[in-house]
């Protein structure tokens, strides 16, 4: 099982702050497709991801038990 964490406005788009889902063996890129198609996340391309609080690239592979965070960069200032 894996835990997904949604930050900022992604939380509203996904309708939840966290989500439990089994995506072990998939890449971050594959997971991004899943969350945009099945959980309504938009503009997922430019969202930063972290696996277990470490920056993750699109081709990183998710392991059993990993927690994946979706962090949208914002521009306000």
């Amino acid at each position, binding site marked *: 099982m894996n835990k997904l964490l949604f*930050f*900022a*406005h992604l*939380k509203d788009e996904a309708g939840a*702050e966290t989500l439990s889902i089994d995506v072990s063996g998939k890449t971050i890129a594959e997971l991004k497709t899943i969350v945009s198609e099945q959980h309504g996340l*938009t*503009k997922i*391309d*430019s969202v*930063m991801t*972290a696996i277990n*609080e*470490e*920056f993750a*690239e*699109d081709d990183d592979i998710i392991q059993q038990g990993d927690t994946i*965070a979706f*962090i*949208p*960069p*914002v*521009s*306000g*200032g």
Partner: protein
Amino acid sequence: MNERYSRQTLFPAIGEEGQKKIRKKHVLIIGAGALGSGNAEVMTRAGIGKLTIVDRDYVEESNLQRQQLYTEEDVFEKMPKAAVAEKRLRAINSETDIAAVITDATPDRLEELVQTVDLIIDSTDNFETRMAINDISQKYQIPWIYGACVGSYGMSLTIIPGMTPCLHCLLKKIPIQGMTCDTGGIIAPAVQMVIAHQTAEALKILVEDWDAIRTTFTSFDLWGNQYTNIKIAKAKDDGCLSCGEARTYPFLQNENLMKTTVLCGRDTVQVRPPAKQQLDLARLSEQMQASGYQIKGNPYLISVEMKPQRIVVFNDGRALIHGTKDLSQAKAIYNRLLG
């Protein structure tokens, strides 16, 4: 040493030696909005030797809730933010050399501005300028500190050339149509939290305490009670075009800049993003309506009343700003809506 800084020099990691270093340094702050006002005030009170603050905009009523250097009188007078900031900062500390520049921080201007600078503090409201700052930072080996916020959410990252990954390593694709303070709102404590992170990092850099530099990407949500640090050391990309071996500084190049043109006789400026985009106009329209703007639209464009201007946004990212001939004002309005 001056009594004025005694409480800061009592702090062991700064001390008398650190204060002497702070006194010799020149900090450049890009943007004099919410983050810029706060960052500039902290740096000025800390006794920085020279501070240059750059902004293209003027003070508006909706700024007063969080932009700490401005007053109702500045709104009434429609004063440029940089000019007001300069006056207030001088009144706070006459020992700091304050320079205000009222300009749009384009790559050309940035190249001139950074020549004697030790540190750049990002206080802008858009990624185009941030990516240009990122390239300039690498080109001239000047540290910079990214900071941004919207709603109750904020983030910060410290970039030291040769030591940490750069913003381009982390953001392979530049975010478009991000939430901005004009579409997602903003509360003052989120601003202050980002300022706290940026200025703490600034002090570390100014006293050259390199071991103390934060090596994580920090993000927080003050309303959602969330605080997260992401380790980023492994994100450093040797192929990065901004900081890698075959660097080209893409964001300093003309073809990657936003284009603005005055449309003759129409009191209108056209703003065109560097690359064609696919905006979600329905979503933008919803956000703008929720923020209280009057919107009209069809599948090809939306028209937003932002009195005295009216802005028409097409789905490829192009926009017409009616009611102005001022290029930098038009860009400021565009960035406020689209980030």
